[in-house]
């Protein structure tokens, strides 16, 4: 069987290994991220949540996923 190629990306500061042909939508699904409650940045640029399945991920990409928490 052919070995699946993996790449490393950073999500919220943590290094994650993903298959090289993953798109952002798959990664978010695996993390069970509720899209309606978050905002997402890819390499410091805000991305359109409706288009995550069109976004291919590359080695060393930095993803930030944020939401609202208690604050003053």
């Amino acid at each position, binding site marked *: 069987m052919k070995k699946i190629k993996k790449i490393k990306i950073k999500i919220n500061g943590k290094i994650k290994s993903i298959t090289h042909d993953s798109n952002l939508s798959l990664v978010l699904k695996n993390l069970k991220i509720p899209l309606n409650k978050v905002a997402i940045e890819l390499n410091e640029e805000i991305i359109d949540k409706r288009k995550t399945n069109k976004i291919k991920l590359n080695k060393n990409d930095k993803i930030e996923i944020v939401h609202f928490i208690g604050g*003053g």
Partner: protein
Amino acid sequence: MVNLKKDSLIIANKKFNSRLIVGTGKYKSMSECAKAIKLSGAEIVTVAVRRVNISDKNKPLLMDYLDPKKFTYLPNTAGCFNSKEALRTLRLAREIGGWKLVKLEVLGDKKNLFPDMIETLKSTEVLANEGFKVMVYCNDDPLMAKRLENAGADAIMPLAAPIGSGLGIQNKINIQIIRKQTKLPLIIDAGLGQASDATIAMELGCDGVLVNTAIAKAKKPFEMALAFKNAVLAGRQSYRSGRIDKILMGNPSSPSKGII
């Protein structure tokens, strides 16, 4: 009697019945936070923007406790120390759910938490140009307040005292001068310690107050939430009733005519 029901607070063309805005930080639990906020009668709640915990997917979410359809979430840039960080935070906040009404807070010093007004002013201009409705945390300087207004702020939010200090309003004169010069909503933000501080703010003519620590860290947060609700109503009613003039000497309450 003053009809308080018709006395709404209008911020960026949106009407609110409560003049008390509350923070959602520092509570022991989400359920305590939600209960205190419901008791306070507040319709606007400030929230922070932070990373999702990706390793613990079952962590409770604020939105599960405070329905964003029932409360106006006011994303805040607390913890930002320059314009770049603040703008990034609020652009993300807008993306979460389309919120345009935001609270800008750019801090300048980690110990006293005073706002950096140069960065704050810069950020206000950018945000107003991007279509945000910006409520701006600021110091109690009337000149700076005017500049923020000219830069497109939707509400002026001077501090009473340093954030979380509980010292109450330190500079009543400045707050009154800001009140006289602006028609924008004037909301006291930060530094209140007890309910009477909110009454004083309202009696000075402020349009509202924002409270977090004084409720969240009170020994009995639920009762303090109610106390603040009543204090804001009392202060507003007192302000609208037109107080008597201050005089130096006594003035008897009973008529002197007919004394036996």
